[in-house]
């Protein structure tokens, strides 16, 4: 029996993809995990992934991406300017709007009154960073650990193309998600766990749709698709043994199955058969490993309290943040939390408050928790949505109520850990938080930066499909935002 790494795609496809440049010697090296230089560093075994990765030593071993689906208002959270109090109620000047295309939802409005946030802001941390005092008190407490980027921008101004763009690098369907790219490039360090995990929490506002493609594998092999960890039912689909059939019985069944498959291998000498046996073993181990990870009983109270009262609620963002840390500890490479409900076209003041109640404490807790465990050093944490929102009110502006439409010309995200500067702000927008005036960061640049922190040159992480060397960042140029790196 020859060694065969089960997490690699089939031998045939592997050879096809890498072309004919790999001889048998190289192949056997690649099939033996212990011989691979691991991107996770010393003492960690790596399964799958490309031999050329890391392209250079990366600061991050893993990513936790808190994706705020629906387009959170950068104006009401991070990109505040005191002058906006004076602009409140004034018409958005044409000189600011320029020839901006507006979505069909507000393009018919006769008036575009600017709205200053209806919240208190305060300045926090060493650099006196403006943060919404009412909504993000906990985040305010960790500003010295994160970099806030205020100059993200995207071409898409509608949910479907925008959320597809930022997660897969293209507005149209069919491309692999960032997590799938990482699984393909970096493999996994815990073969009993998926390399790319997705968790979804519901949020309380208008729920825009999510799509499997956001964590899908596109043209990459399906094994790279994100695996949804779920709060209700089985944590991973089809994970539980059927009722009446316990783990011991399953073990016995798999032993018989292996013996039978071995007989078949003797007949056909097809390494695929050995690979299949390994997959069944992996499945068996996953069945014990995953449920243990989902069970937070063993977490001390002070940790649960750190993430806030909702931690007790399965499916909440708070619970997912805590689970994300547990996954990170177990070697999952890419953990993406989708929190829905940020699409505040109307009643923004009350709805954004609800949303922030759900996310502020857990997000800040995750930073603190990782930091106190020393894991922030090599965990890249990302927080943000698919676009921002307009300074002008969508619908009627009243004393205490208004809405905001989608805005792609600028929006804010924050990053922390793994070589990202602590306590830093990057990029500037104009007084209306409408246009970027300094250091624009396209979402492609953002994705290139995430890859860079993992030791990947975004130009070199490619997969040949339909005649092209496809990459996450597409054919347009992308630049690593080096200024935010320590």
């Amino acid at each position, binding site marked *: 029996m020859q060694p065969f790494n089960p997490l690699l*795609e*089939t031998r*045939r*496809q592997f*050879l*096809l993809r890498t072309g004919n440049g790999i001889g*048998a010697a190289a192949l056997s090296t690649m099939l033996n995990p212990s011989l691979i230089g691991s991107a996770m560093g010393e003492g960690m075994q790596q399964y799958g992934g490309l031999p050329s990765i890391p392209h250079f030593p990366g600061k991050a071993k893993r990513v936790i991406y808190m994706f705020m689906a629906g387009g959170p208002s950068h104006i009401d959270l991070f990109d505040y300017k005191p002058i906006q109090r004076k602009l409140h109620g004034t018409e958005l000047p044409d000189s600011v709007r320029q020839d901006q*295309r507006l*979505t*069909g*939802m507000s393009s018919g409005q006769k008036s575009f009154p600017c709205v200053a946030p209806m919240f208190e802001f305060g300045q926090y941390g060493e650099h006196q960073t403006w943060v919404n005092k009412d909504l993000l008190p906990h985040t305010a407490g960790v500003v010295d650990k994160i970099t806030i980027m205020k100059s993200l921008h995207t071409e898409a101004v*509608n949910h479907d*193309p925008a959320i597809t763009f930022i997660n897969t690098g293209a507005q*149209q*369907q*069919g491309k692999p998600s960032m997590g799938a790219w990482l699984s393909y490039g970096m493999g996994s360090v815990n073969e009993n766990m998926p390399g790319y995990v997705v968790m*979804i929490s519901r949020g309380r506002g*208008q729920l825009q*749709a999510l*799509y*499997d*493609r956001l964590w899908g594998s596109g043209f*990459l*092999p*399906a094994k790279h*698709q994100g695996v949804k960890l779920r709060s209700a*039912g089985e944590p*991973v*689909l*089809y*994970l539980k043994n*059927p*009722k*009446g*059939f316990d783990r011991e019985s*399953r073990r*016995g*069944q798999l032993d*018989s*199955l292996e013996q*039978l*498959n071995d*007989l*078949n291998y003797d007949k*056909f*000498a*097809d390494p*695929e058969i050995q690979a299949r*046996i390994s*997959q*069944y073993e*992996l*499945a068996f181990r996953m069945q014990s490993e995953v449920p243990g990870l989902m069970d937070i009983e063993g977490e001390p109270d002070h940790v649960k309290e750190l993430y806030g009262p909702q931690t007790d609620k399965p499916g909440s963002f708070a619970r997912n943040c805590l689970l994300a840390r547990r996954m990170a500890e177990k070697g999952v490479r890419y953990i993406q939390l989708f929190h*829905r409900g940020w699409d505040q076209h109307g009643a923004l003041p009350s709805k954004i408050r609800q949303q922030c109640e759900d996310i502020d404490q857990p997000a800040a807790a995750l930073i603190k928790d990782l930091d106190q465990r020393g894991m922030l050093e090599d965990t890249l944490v990302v927080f943000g949505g698919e676009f921002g929102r307009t300074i002008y009110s969508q619908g009627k502006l009243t004393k205490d109520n208004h809405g905001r439409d989608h805005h792609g010309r600028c929006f804010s995200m924050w990053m922390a850990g793994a070589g990202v500067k602590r306590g830093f702000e990057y990029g500037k927008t104009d007084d209306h938080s409408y246009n970027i005036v300094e250091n624009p960061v396209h979402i492609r640049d953002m994705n290139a930066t995430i890859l860079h922190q993992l030791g990947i040159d975004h*130009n*070199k992480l*490619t997969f040949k499909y*339909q*005649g*092209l060397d496809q990459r996450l960042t597409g054919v347009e140029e992308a630049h690593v935002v080096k200024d935010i790196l320590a």
Partner: protein
Amino acid sequence: MKKLLILVLIPGSLFAGTIDFNRDVRPILSDTCFKCHGPGETKGDLRLDDREDALDAGVLSPGDVAKSEIVKRLKTADLDELMPPPESNKTLTPKQIQILETWIAEGAEYDDHWSLVSPKGDDAVNSLDHFIDKRIGAAGLRPQPEADRRTQIRRVTLDLTGLPPTPKEVEQFISDRSPEAYEKLVDRLLASKAYGERMALAWMDAARYGDSSVMHADGPRFMWPWRDWIIKAYNSNMPFDQFTIEQIAGDLLPEATVSQKVASGFNRNHATSDEGGAFAEELRVEYVADRVQTTANVWMGLTMECAQCHDHKYDPISQKEYYQFFAFFNNTTDPGMQTRNGNQAPFVEVPDEEQMKRLAELHKQVTSSDQKMEDYRATVAKSPEFQKWITKKSEEARKNGGTKQPEGLIHWFPVNAPAKDFRDELTGSAAVAEKGKFEVSDRETSKALKLNGGTQFKFDTPVNVEFNLPFSITGWIKPSGKPTGAILSKMDDKASFRGFDFWMEGGKIGTHIVNSWQKNALKVVTTETLKPNQWQHVVLTYDGKHKASGVKIFIDGRLAKSHVQSDTLKGTIKTNQPLRIGSRSTSSNWKGEVDDLRLYSRALREEELAAAAGGDPIQEILAAPAKDRTPADNKTLLARYLGSQDKAFKGLVAAKAKLEKQIADLNRKPVTSMIMQDNPPNKMRMTYVLDRGAYDSPKKEEVIRPAVPKALPPLPEGAPANRLGLALWLTQPSHPLTARVAVNRYWMMLFGEGLVRSVGDFGAQSTPPTHPGLLDWLAVDFMESGWDVKRMLKQLVTSKTYRRSSKIESMHREKDSENELLAHAPRFRLQGEFIRDHALAVSGLLNPTIGGPGVKPYQPANIWNEVSLNGGLRYKQDKGDKLYRRSMYTYWKRSSPMPNMLIFDSPSREKCVIQRQRTNTPLQALVTLNDPQFLEAARAFAERLLKSDKSDTAGRIDLAYRYATARLATGREIEILTQLYQKNLTRFQSAPEAAKEFLKVGESPRDESFDASEHAAWMVVAQTIMNLDESLTRN
């Protein structure tokens, strides 16, 4: 094609002895040089895709390697000089450089890119094995002998039908010793219906077929008539050229049939959006781009989409040529913003055979139900009970005196104290309270029905009111203030308000008579309001001439002035919604009191109004002497008797109402399928080059006309410059790509990989064919046969190459690890759909119904609502035999497809996919071990074994192997599984509750006559066999 001998043997090459530009050189140049020195860009004024250009630029010196600049630049240590430049991330291996050197030494000859030159056949060859054997021989390998017959029948049955052979079919084949046995088998498979399904499934990936619209809400759509068309086309062996023409341009064919239009839906399968804020034109351009990409990819293996923003970097397709191709698809009538609910126009109504059959059956039942009622009436008319009733009622009537009543009363809803409910006194149909409860109030001496703005009643009785028939509605009305709402209606809010109502609007009274609000409807309302909180008698008459002028409204006998709000009625107002009092189907609850509502099947005359306002309509008839009663009078009496006194008759009425409802249900949902349709010539949409592909940057200086790329043959003479011309062009014999691409896909289906392994790309970046002569030979043969698909497949599966054993010899692995030469047959995992179908087939659960709408088998909870817009969309699992249809019919929601299939590499079908990945993962093991669908199949499989004529353990295990692997179980296998069986039997016997739990999975019933422990233990064995690598693999 010129072949040159190379002097140095290329190490590791399977093509010892010759160098071929297209096979050996072009892939290197294309991948590493063309991006900057190719069709799209000429950095430093250098093109390397053209020999003349390269020679002119002075970088190539044919025959002189040392003098050739190109070689120097490949080998230099100076990073500024090095090619390809380091930032390109491309490097040439020493072997590749050696190939280029050899090529230059031999004269640096170019060939046109192989796939753009028309294929040439070879008349001297009469079998594909010739090409395969030649290369195997040259490589010094020995091909495997023919596989054993059991392997052969399982292989070819799975490949051609996606289903395993039954043990009976296997035995038949084994025992057929005639030399034609295999051929007969292949003929049988190609003639089976499952063949069309199998072929359709592959086509569905390419055609990006789905049951939902993909973007934003990803709402439902109905394209399954298109899928049915595909299945039929394959099963009837429609020639591939016709198959092509109808799908690309079926709508443009002269006198296009419904079926041809349905076929054109190929290019409506793409993703569409309904997102509120979206830019319609941006989306529309995206749809057209998708059609270009898919059409070019599926038929030509060209990545034309690369030229949307700039000239193609590798293939001879300029940006302008892209938009010329784009223009073929840019003149369609479908909009950018599309619906999230159902089919977006243009579409055709599709006669659905199943539906027609059911309708015909229902109409027959209605006729027989009418007859039954007629017979019953005739019987009752003569019955002594009826006569007794008349006599009794007549006496009462004569005592009270009757008023002359208008004829034509069809429904009457009086409210009589102290009744606890009320009914249609003429048909006997009782009111069903849909909302609220029955409340009465007083009206003078009588009682009345009180509607509080939340109550509504329905009546399941047929109502014959139509747009072209007269009718009248009368009643006593006491509005509560100035209400708005429907007093009486038969209307479907959700079908553009089809139907009619007796309507109040801010205290004014009138009617809607609607086919489709507002474009086909009539609305008349009085200009005055009814007096609030007072009883008034209102009569509304309609003359059936579908004009507003034919509506008259009388208040207390006086003709009221009215206002026409809509006068466009011209079609049926039939709806399956029942007659209601108090509201419409879902809205417009009315507030007030009402009594004595009547519906007449004629327009009452003014002089009849007073009579309609009071008394019992039959009192006058009853009061008259029996001899003076007209036949119509007698009928009314009988109706009254039956409606109020006869329970059996009420049953008949209800039965008929049920039938009518079923008919209306069927008619309400005509089956449609989206199609392609072009704007007329005078409204043609202009096409321009879009600068950098941006929808809002058309270069208006030049109008782009539909045309094909210059590197390919021109449109056939006389062909129109539209999609029809395009389809004819694709299928003309001189087209170098269509036939090659098609046969290559068939090859992939049967051999796991294409002869051109980049199945979706035949351009410069493609993998050259492993057997170029064979590819051409097949392509020419395919065209010459009249594009006969079944014949082609038969040719492939009857070849020696196909029928070989799949055993891998160490020699094969050393010399040909990718099995390019096919010295042994390929072995590969079945695709996800076939793994599920296999489980259903061996278990006996499979429901072989062909075609029709998607079905919803088991799916874990909350998969849809976790991601759906607004979070409320639930997957509603089907019941019964729909759980066991072939997997190709599984409802395919493209933003959240069936997870057990995605895990097995099924594409989401948001975009065209020509070649699936084939992976092997732990999640797949979890599916076949724990998914209820597979567990239930194991339970049913176990039951099948228990029910078989085999009564011993070994016999049953052997039978299970015959089902799942088509072969007999070996002694060792029987031994292993017997042990497994015994162990589980013991365990289940000691824990009978566990056995019962284990057997509970799935909705199909279990045969309770089998001992639970025994059945459960067999279920473990069955599941183990279904999970064998051999079961999951096409060997």
